[in-house]
């Protein structure tokens, strides 16, 4: 049971690859204007990069036989499969507004649902160990 609890937050937080809790604390909490600015900048950046997804993916695919460890020898897929997954992350099927909502959803998933729970689990865990 503990193992499951520990794994779940990790899988979701991995999608943003950061420990978002401490980061948001640095903004001054969820209600601050900095946090809203952060969300808006992230969405703008996501949309700006989506417009150039072709360039990024093309350059990455040029590197597919250069012997980059995680691109050519990834245990989960071959280089085409890995690049397909990267392409999926760009969510080229969405419009700009949908993509914005998608990214806000990602941030919220990381924050609202998971982070407090992780902290709680660890908190109780470390208290219980005493």
């Amino acid at each position, binding site marked *: 049971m503990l193992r499951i609890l*520990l*794994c779940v*937050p*990790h*899988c979701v937080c*991995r*999608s*943003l*690859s*950061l*420990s978002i809790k*401490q*980061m948001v*604390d*640095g*903004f*001054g909490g969820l209600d601050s204007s*900095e946090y809203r*600015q*952060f*969300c808006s*900048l*992230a969405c*703008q*950046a*996501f949309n*700006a*990069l989506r*417009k150039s997804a072709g*360039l*990024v993916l093309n*350059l*990455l695919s*040029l*590197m597919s036989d*250069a*012997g*980059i*460890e*995680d*691109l050519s020898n*990834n*245990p*989960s897929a071959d280089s085409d499969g*890995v690049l397909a*997954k*990267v392409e999926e*992350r*760009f969510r080229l099927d969405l419009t700009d507004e949908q993509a914005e909502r998608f*990214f806000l959803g*990602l*941030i919220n998933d990381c924050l609202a649902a998971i982070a407090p729970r*992780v*902290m709680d689990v*660890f*908190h109780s*865990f*470390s*208290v219980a*160990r005493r």
Partner: protein
Amino acid sequence: MCNWQTIYTGKLWAGDFDLVVYDFFGTTLTLLLFSRYLKVELQDPTHGVRYREVFSALKARLSDTAFTTSDQHDRAHDSASTPFKSIVDSVSKLGTPFRGSDGGTAERDRSVKKGAKQLSVWDVLLAQDSFISGIMDIQLRCRDARGKKDVKEAQLKSLLSKEGYDRKAQRYPVPLPSAPDLLVNGVLPDTAKMFKSTLYPALIEFHVEGTLKSRWSTLSKGQRPENPLTSYKVIVKTGDDLRQDQLIIMVIQLMDGLLKRGALDLCLTPYAIIAMSPTSGLVEFVDGAIPISQVLSKYNGSIMQFFQATAPQKGAKYDVRPDVMSTYVRSCAGYCVITFLLGVGDRHLDNILLRATGHFFHIDFGFIFGRDPKPLPPAFRLTREVSNRI
């Protein structure tokens, strides 16, 4: 990148050579690597002969090309033409077989020869190769030496000064491979350090003899130091493949450019990194960057308190300087998106760094495209951190 493709797939022959060298000088200036890779290709049984031609052509032309630095006073006022620009010019002009017939080139050659000690690009390459390889060799020997970290560090310092890598040796200034616009002529052995990790990477501080003008145009306003650089810190790493990190840094640079074109400056930190061989490389040491884990343990687990201590301003929001806060928000947003898109894994609090200027950035891209080491360790890091705070 397409030049590398041509080189790697063996589509290169002497006829393409001018184009490759021209582009190469123009873009990355990492000629040392170029000649190194060529040396490797020479060993190839089927294509080796063809590369031998390319290699000897490269050597002949580079030996003919004079190396000019910004130290020459007669050129100092001429800020528009950086020294490397003049190399590019002369290399491209060397493509014409009879240089003497071109009056402009001959005049240029004469003016270049006025310098007291004039070396060709090839000589500089050899000097750079022996200088950097020597330092890497010392790092490797100290890494494998018996003893604890302090013993290795002491040995590193003594070897660096004993074997003539400090400034006393009076080397000719050579471009540093990871930052070719800096000319270095020695290291500062006293500040050399070794990091406590399995591979014991060494932190080496180079003395910067000269700087090329082009450096300032590539840096954004915040990064531009007020005084001219006198030293530059580099992490020398052997035993690790840095090509993947280099790829990710290049992608971050690309994305940074794309975002800036869209009028979004997200204050990213694409630090300089270069893989010198499949098992070694140089990484820029970003001064004043602290891992988030240390920030949290020093400042009661709050990034806000870190900023309040390092960039205070009374009366501003949260008592933090607004420009620092804005940099922090921007870089967080930028790295948030980029790490998501590239699926960067193994994110724990030790490889996310923060500077007092608000720059937030990720290092160590050993796990990318959704790959991640074991699922549990990062979770436990949090445990320790939480329990420390209680």
